């Protein structure tokens, strides 16, 4: 299943899937760059859809179907909708919105470059020339489920407790103002 690339495969004769993977990766990267550089708030949210969709396609190409659809379901279907909802509720002008710029661009760029460098170094160093064969499919719902609930069940449970805590916290925060404000608690 996992062999060293140098033994069986070369990097210079890629298969069709690998080329597609690289191209989709480039498109995703491009969409991500536009997401953070565009001057229009809502366009930025919509480019985020393209970026997250591109990631979903990459998961598909790695045969991780379940992850891909959950990615679309949660991020495109809910997170971006929440973002758009927030934007529409507060301030979403058509055209440029210069008042939304905060002068932190250089700092943000610095942080982004550093963290990207760190992540890329980590991934490259961790896998180096490892070759993972994805046929037969190694990311089906069956395999993912078994891995998640057999080998990774502790982190999974820890995360669910974290999410539960966040949920309870959100409810507490949203109800906080009710009793204190005199009279205003009637129609919260």
């Amino acid at each position, binding site marked *: 299943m996992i062999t060293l690339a140098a033994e069986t495969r070369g990097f210079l004769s890629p298969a069709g899937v690998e080329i597609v993977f690289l191209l989709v990766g480039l498109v995703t990267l491009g969409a991500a760059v536009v997401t953070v550089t565009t001057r229009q708030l*809502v366009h930025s949210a919509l480019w985020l859809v393209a970026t997250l969709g591109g990631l979903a396609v990459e998961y598909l190409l790695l045969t991780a179907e379940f992850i891909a659809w959950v990615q*679309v379901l949660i991020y495109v279907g809910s997170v971006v*909708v929440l973002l758009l909802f927030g934007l529409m509720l507060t301030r979403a002008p058509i055209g440029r919105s210069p008042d939304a710029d905060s002068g932190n661009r250089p700092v943000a760029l610095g942080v982004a470059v550093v963290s990207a460098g760190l992540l890329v170094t980590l991934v490259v160093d961790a896998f180096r020339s490892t070759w993972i064969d994805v046929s037969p499919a190694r990311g089906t719902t069956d395999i993912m489920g078994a891995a998640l609930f057999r080998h990774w069940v502790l982190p999974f449970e820890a995360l669910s407790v974290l999410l539960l805590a966040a949920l309870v916290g959100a409810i507490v925060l949203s109800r906080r103002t009710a009793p204190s404000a005199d009279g205003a608690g009637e129609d919260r």
Partner: protein
Amino acid sequence: MNAIDVIVTLLGVLLVFLVLPLVVGQTEHKVMAHMQGRVGPMYAGGFHGWAQLVADGVKFAQKEDVVPDGADRRIFQLAPAVALLPYLIVLVAIPFAPGGGVGQAIDAGIFFVLAVMGAGVLGTLMGGWASANKFGLLGGLRTAAQLLAYELPMLLTAASVAMAAGTVSLTGILDGFEWWWIPWQIVGAFVFFTAGLAELQRPPFDAPIADSEIIFGAYTEYSGLRFALFMLAEYAGIVVLCGLTTVLFLGGWHGPFSDSVGWLWTLLKTAVLAFGVIWLRVTYPRLREDQIQRFAWTVLIPLALAQIALTGIVKVVI
């Protein structure tokens, strides 16, 4: 699967996609009319006005396609396609007959259909925002709020079916179907169907498009073919929702002689559900925005959780 098979499958899906929503639309014309004590369209095409929707389509195609001056042109023009295409894609994954009667069997089918359907709402949001119209924006806001509230019960009940069947593949669910799943999952079916109606913004959950108060919400500024595409998306959505409810909760192609006429059972169950959708539109007044939210969070989600608990208990016992 060779290239010809793929092309035939895609053409078949396209045909279903073009025909069934129109049939539902025409049925809506006639059923609404008869429930309201009138006859509905009678002239176009001769027999009981069967070609009325075709005539409507021609009319829409002839209208001028207006883009408002202050609108965000590209997003405004792109929105109808984003709203319509997901339903076309979803149809590929809905099984309609036994023994490979499905456009493309997908391993994580439930998640696929729900994910793609959820993405379709982006089209309405884009249209509502890009119109540069306060009614459009209001409609978009209401759409988003409604989607966020109703996505959860829909997912929970779909998860309940997946638990019952022990698989997340739509074909797998139908292969494992037993008749007693219907009473077992009946609460889930109600929640799923109702939440689906709300996601499609059909009456009584049509506050986001409410023509008599916010003038069709996100579609206010649309005219001509683009408006027609939004309408087509609504009817395609009805077909997809009813088909999906049939597959998940009503046993899809299961029924007497299902080996030979399985597809007919799917179609029949879908049609009965679609009739119910139309019936609800004629029967119930529009819910207020706060009533819509309250219904989702205080009725549907507790019911969905109760259904999951029930599914889990029965699953452990048997």
